[in-house]
């Protein structure tokens, strides 16, 4: 029963998304990306743009990411070992 409902709902959702999104695949990149490609090497000195973004332009995101990792580790230890005082 749930399976049938699930299929129906998901199909409706799929039709919705595909009908309303006109996403073009493989076209030109956006404004931000052009700026990265233009300035990336000169500003950060890293040839690999992913690195330059990860470790320089958006390092704040990366900081958040590591914190989440830290929280998860803490959480796992808390759940498994219990919350000792």
């Amino acid at each position, binding site marked *: 029963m749930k399976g049938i409902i699930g299929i129906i709902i998901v199909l409706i959702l799929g039709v919705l*998304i595909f009908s309303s999104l006109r996403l073009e695949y493989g076209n030109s990149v956006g404004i931000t990306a052009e700026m990265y490609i233009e300035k990336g090497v000169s500003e950060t000195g890293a040839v690999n743009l992913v690195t330059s973004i990860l470790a320089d332009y958006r390092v704040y995101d990366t900081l958040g990411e590591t914190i989440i990792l830290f929280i998860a580790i803490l959480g796992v230890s808390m759940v498994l070992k219990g919350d000792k005082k």
Partner: protein
Amino acid sequence: MDIIFIVVVPLFLSFVVSLMHALSRYKKLVFFENFLSIIGLLIPFLILMSTFPVISSGDTITYNVGGWNPFLGIALEMDSLTFFFSFISLALLILIMVYSLSRSAKYKVLYLLMAAGVQGVLLTRDIFNLYVFFEILSVSTYILVISEKKRSYKASFKYLVLGSIASVLFLFGVGIIYETTGVLNIDIISSMNTPQLKITFLLFLTSLGIKSGIVPLHFWVPDAHSIAPPPVSALLSGLVLKIGIYSMFRLFYTIFRTNFFEMNDVLMAVGAITIIFGAVLALVQKDLKRMLAYSSINQIGIIFLAFSFGTELGIIGALYMILAHAVAKTCLFLCSGIIGDLTIVSLKSKPSVWLPFFIGSLSLIGLPFTCGFIGKYFVCLAAMETSNTVYAGIILFSSIISAVYYLRASCYLFRIPKDYKISYLMQIPVYISSFACIVLGVLPVLIMDMIELAAKTLGGVI
């Protein structure tokens, strides 16, 4: 000091606290742990207050992380709306931290990280960064919800799954926005003035709706609120739900402005459903904390309704409601922590708690001379101003229902004057929050300028 320290200080001190905990095998350092946990919230508060002169003159403070152009890097911004939320959240975080000082070090670490997450969400102007900090906030609350109770694992799991769905929907929306505009900065996107797709708007609405507990998306709220340890329930209800609402304020009045005003009527109806549902279900509950949780849904409904009117008066009402609810609900949840884990009918209490509990309930009912009334009043005015008197009626109706359940609970609390020993650290926050309920109700002038400024920042339609 730069505004980024509001986020960074709690982060850094949480690491220090965890290190101290690791060292505590050799020497007990509980005092320093407590000290640092408080300091970790106090310093951001002071930094926040130091920005007050700039904010109150109507300016904003911008900070680009790493000094990069906001197209490339991440921009933080402190405007009056952020200031308002940041102020409430830090004040509450400090109060609740004082209340929960007797808890374990891991709890404090998570608490500080969560505080950092909250501040990060409030400050950032980058949608992806918003997602990251939302995750910090949510993941740490998933864990904080777990208590000694057996059922807490189920509640936490439910919260985790639904929260992850919310994050996924959010991220999907971010992807679509990035595809169409190529930028991630909120201000730049909204200055581009391209109306977004309805589906993107709905993705964000659903996602933030889950986070803030709007009715058909509220399922995690009652369980997580009622099973979590009382201070965490207070945080969830007072803060975490509001952060969802804050993000709605931030996104819907900027990027999704056109979509938002197109769907105004529908959103109002959703708000009204939330109000009635929350009120009716709170009336049935036998468990005190569950009742408070459903009452939170009711209040969130009022806030959501007020905010979807889209007028300046509506925004003022919503902001005041947020303040009132945060303060009063914190007070009640902390009281429920002191009262202990009992069903409503068998409440045994101490004379020291009934008064704050009573005042908090008055504020949530929305009776005069408490801050809840001012919020309710503005929301009703906003409803009538936009000629939606029915919604004013619904709000008042729900406040009558909440009068019934809150006063029923208070009636039981009025009796049985029995004295227990409660530590002052737990009592002080309760008293401060209940006192704030009355002060903000009698002298709304104290905060009104800031709220009006924030409402102007968003620019509701008049």
